């Protein structure tokens, strides 16, 4: 999560806290706070529950509540490359490096985002693919940046790592909401931040957040850590494994 976004969120919460006395509050709970990746992991779903709490002093207003749930995975810096045809061959030429982009980003809402809040608000809290902040390492903006940003989001969506559900948040009760965010198998490990925003009549009334972790466990964790931290030792194990397998096969299938 980049610094600008975190600041904006903090500022928003502060404002909300100041006028808390007469406002709605959000209670958020997750179906799990720990997703474990084991050898049989093929993806899972994390359900976000919540309730809109109104104290006695809350002024009854017209209009309906809107809820937006944003799930952000750990940040990563990615290079977006574009292929061009050179001498009949397609090869990577132009590239943009986008700093600290969410590796996973899901936005679920009770209605399409543009019906819920104006663009300025969505931009401030980085709600929705169209309002994500892109910081290119190349510095100053150049013509054609748009194409790289669009491609970034498109590729992430195709990989199932960026997802949206404009009617994904449902209200089982008048002040109770829920949504299930699908976590695909190729998900990166790390801490996932769940931000929930309450809107009414285009105004943000409350926000709250929660977090869950995604981590490899057992053998997967052990193997991954070993390969990362002791690459050479891990390599030796792989070679030993190869020699053992080869030797066993040679002995088992001996024909002469």
């Amino acid at each position: 999560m980049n610094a600008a976004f975190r600041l904006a969120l903090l500022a928003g919460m502060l404002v909300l806290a100041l006028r808390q006395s007469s406002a709605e509050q959000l209670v958020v709970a997750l179906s799990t706070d720990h997703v474990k990746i084991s050898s049989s992991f093929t993806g899972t779903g994390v359900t976000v529950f919540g309730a809109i709490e109104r104290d006695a002093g809350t002024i009854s207003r017209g209009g309906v509540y809107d809820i937006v749930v944003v799930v952000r995975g750990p940040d990563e810096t990615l290079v977006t490359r574009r292929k061009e045809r050179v001498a009949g061959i397609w090869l990577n030429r132009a590239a943009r490096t986008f700093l600290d982009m969410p590796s996973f980003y899901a936005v679920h809402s009770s209605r399409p985002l543009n019906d819920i809040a104006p663009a300025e608000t969505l931009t401030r809290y980085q709600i929705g693919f169209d309002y994500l902040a892109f910081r290119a390492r190349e510095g100053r903006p150049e013509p054609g940046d748009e194409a790289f940003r669009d491609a970034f989001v498109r590729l992430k969506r195709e990989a199932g790592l960026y997802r949206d559900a404009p009617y994904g948040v449902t209200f089982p009760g008048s002040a109770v909401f829920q949504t299930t965010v699908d976590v695909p198998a190729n998900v990166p490990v790390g801490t996932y931040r769940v931000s929930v925003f309450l809107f009414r009549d285009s105004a943000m009334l409350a926000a709250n957040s929660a977090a869950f972790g995604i981590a490899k466990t057992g053998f997967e964790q052990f193997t991954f850590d070993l390969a990362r931290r002791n690459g050479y030792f891990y390599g030796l194990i792989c070679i030993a494994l190869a020699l053992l397998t080869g030797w066993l096969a040679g002995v088992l299938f001996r024909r002469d």
Partner: protein
Amino acid sequence: MQIYLPIAELPVNMFLIFGMGAAVGFLSGLFGVGGGFLLTPLLIFSGISPAVAVASTTAQVVASSFSASLTYWRRKLIDFKLAGVLVVAGIVGSTIGVAIFTLLRRTGQLDLIISICYVTFLGLVGGLMLWESVRSIINTRRGRPAPLRRPGQHGWMHGLPFKMRFKRSKLYVSIIPILAIGVGIGILGSMLGIGGGFILVPALIYILRVPTSIVVGTSLIQMIGTMAVATLLQSGNNHSVDGVLALILMVGGVIGAQFGARLGARVGGEQLRAMLALLVLAVGIRFLVNLVSTPDELFSLATLAGDAR
């Protein structure tokens, strides 16, 4: 059955990967080649990133070469001195190869270079093999004996310095071409995830004139040494060897190879070589098509280290 690969970081169908290993193992047993040049492309085309595919196949080649070499070792069909020189050169080559690999990954040109190398080498070797085997099949049909090369005809190589005697191969040659071959195969092998047997064997026969009975066993030793070092370096530098993937491939490969070898013993050598040539050419053409046809998606994502995302 889906199994999550810890390094490739994606779930794959275990039986599919096992089947690929077994199928390639079968072909490698049938043709007497390592099969890396088939396995790496298969893995890449099935969605595993080129970096992980190359590095994991490297480990698989160690297993299949070691398994195959045991037979030659028992029959004493290995020139260990020649293999030793080749391995030393191969280690130098694979160190260079892995360094180039790491660099290309960072600059996003790895896939391109892998494809170009595959097109070039598979096209060249496949074409030569096909030409040679078709010619000898025609010669046999017409009842003409295959042209034999005169023994002792060494050409330009004879003039090179630093000669060494290899008793087992009955050779007295300069070590310069041996080192050059070893380094070259080491670079190619570690970059492309292939043992390089389909290049090494002809090179040893035609350039160094190593007796054909000894050439396969000796080249297997070179592959074990070079690929083991490449596995170690890939793992240490790029963290891209997936042990689980490699193990499934190894088991599938060594089992498939047994059945392939049995069938291979019953098919004629020239026909076998022509079939192998067609297979090699087909893989090369597949890469060429990929290079020149307009891709569906022009954009790609990767981390700074070069992992595809």
